[in-house]
């Protein structure tokens, strides 16, 4: 066998393996969309078909009658945006203090913060639930937004980035009489847009997908974010598969659209979480 021939067979078998894997990965999505357009009879046809005929839109209108899915999506968008913005503010402030200021007990304090990352959410779930009931925050967005308004992980990611910025940047500003907080706002933050964007994407995605927290804290259907709403809708649709898949498609569509448009950012931020833990 010549070398060229070997490379050719290797590459084509690689394509076959990758192609099969990729196809298997996206099949559930294609299948969901296909089912969502099928009549109740066609859903159970054997062999199954990926191209619905006729196209049955009623599943979508039925789904929207059964549960206010667009309302759920808006709720999630609102919650995730507010929490993301708050996190960017609180985490960058803490990260600047830990990364670029000197004060007594700085390093032990930072270690203590890191230590809290070890506590899994289910330990604080019950006390937080009781705390929120006691504060009368239960069944309102305050119960979701306030505890989630800061994260140690975000502080860690931003601190790593802040520490790579050279000292001289700030010294020049200080000569001109700028305070430390001033130079944080006017110099460090504008230079940290890539890190802030990464943390923003991660926080937003995490909040969008959050399920257990809102499931526990909210009672009012109108307040449900999309994941809890979808679980509620699942109960409404039960085994009306066409309608169930239509609702699920509506729930996934915005995220998938954003992902395909902003792919590069997603991939970069995901790689960074991996590096962040190393």
């Amino acid at each position, binding site marked *: 066998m010549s070398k060229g021939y070997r490379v050719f067979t290797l590459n084509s078998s*690689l394509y076959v*393996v*990758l192609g099969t*894997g*990729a196809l298997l*990965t*996206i099949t*559930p*999505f294609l*299948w*969901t969309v296909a089912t969502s357009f099928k009549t109740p009879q066609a*859903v159970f046809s054997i*062999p*199954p078909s990926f191209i619905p005929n006729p196209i049955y839109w009623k599943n979508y209108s039925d789904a929207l009658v059964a549960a206010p899915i667009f309302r759920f999506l808006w709720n999630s968008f609102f919650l995730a945006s507010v929490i993301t913005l708050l996190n960017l503010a*609180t*985490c960058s*402030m*803490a990260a600047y*203090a830990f990364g670029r*200021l000197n*004060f*007594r007990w700085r390093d032990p*304090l930072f270690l203590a913060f890191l230590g*809290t990352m*070890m*506590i*899994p*959410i*289910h*330990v*604080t779930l*019950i*006390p937080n639930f*009781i*705390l929120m*009931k006691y504060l009368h925050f239960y069944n309102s967005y305050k119960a979701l937004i306030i*505890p989630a*308004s*800061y994260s*140690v992980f975000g*502080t860690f990611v931003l601190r790593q980035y802040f520490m790579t910025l050279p000292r001289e940047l700030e010294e020049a500003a200080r000569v001109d009489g700028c*305070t430390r907080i001033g130079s*944080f706002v006017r110099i460090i933050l504008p230079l940290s847009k890539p890190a802030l964007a990464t943390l923003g994407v991660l926080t937003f995605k995490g909040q969008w*997908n959050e*399920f257990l927290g809102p499931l*526990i804290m909210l009672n009012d259907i109108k307040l449900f974010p999309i*994941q809890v709403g*979808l679980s509620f809708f699942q109960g409404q649709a039960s085994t009306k*598969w066409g309608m169930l898949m239509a609702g699920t498609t509506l*729930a996934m569509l915005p995220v*998938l659209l954003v*992902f395909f448009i902003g*792919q590069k950012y997603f*991939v970069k931020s*995901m*790689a960074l979480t*991996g*590096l962040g*833990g*190393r």
Partner: protein
Amino acid sequence: MSVAYQPGKSRSRFARWFYHREEPLSASLLLLPAVLNTLFFTVFPVLMAVWISLQSWDLLTPPQFVGLKNYTEILFHDAHFRQAVGNTVYFVLGQVPLNVAVSLFLAILLNQKLKGISWFRTAFYTPIVTSTVSVAIVWLWMLNGDFGLINWGLRFMGISRPPNWLVDPFWAKPALILMTVWKNAGYYMVMFLAGLQSIPESLYEAAEVDGARSWRKFWSITFPLISPTTFLVTILLIVDAFQIFDQVYIITKGGPSGSTETIVYYIYNHGFEWFKMGYASAMAWILFVIIFILTLLQFRLQRKWVHYE
């Protein structure tokens, strides 16, 4: 080396005072939200969780101190809890190695310089972006015994009586593992890709000169050099698999006959369905201790197989 404050020049007393204290003052201001949030929503709840776990409390009547009774009850008298631990361990042992293997395999394939590779990459990322809840509903339909796509495929391949996944206590766990690996593979693949890209090309070239085959190159170069990433991925996966909840809640609700009831699902039921706060808190602490010990153990074991440069 700062020029901002020059002692010789006439500056107000306040400016001098401020100069020496600016950094700690700014730091305390900047850290205020972080400290308050952590005290209120992490430190205080943790202390509270210890206290609650020693009570019998349904939130309607005042809590009653019961000492360690919740713990002894859970550890020695609760058969359901034992089943939940068994199920969770099954999930961990089934999912973690499979997930590591699939993600590493995909990363190695995607690390090749091929035309159109980014299209494949996008496909593998897709399940990560979507929420566990939504893909769990999708898989509920995929795994349907009579009309689901998976069983249709198995029948097509000649298996005349494929398992009724979600109804059969034996097959429900493998079904959830399959779904979870499908969902997670891309995420850990990204980490492995980052690790693979840090391995210098020259090592492979040298091995080729020595006539090493692909398999040999994998075991002698790739595997040892990527072991820090493998270690991290394994730890993250174990912690994650121990806390499996969303897919159980959506797909099986712990059934059939308790075969997919996991520890976190059991905690959820006790705390938020039956309002046994003390019992649920004690269980949460037991889970924490299990995860903590396992993570420590991993750090011990890593000396045997993880190579740092």
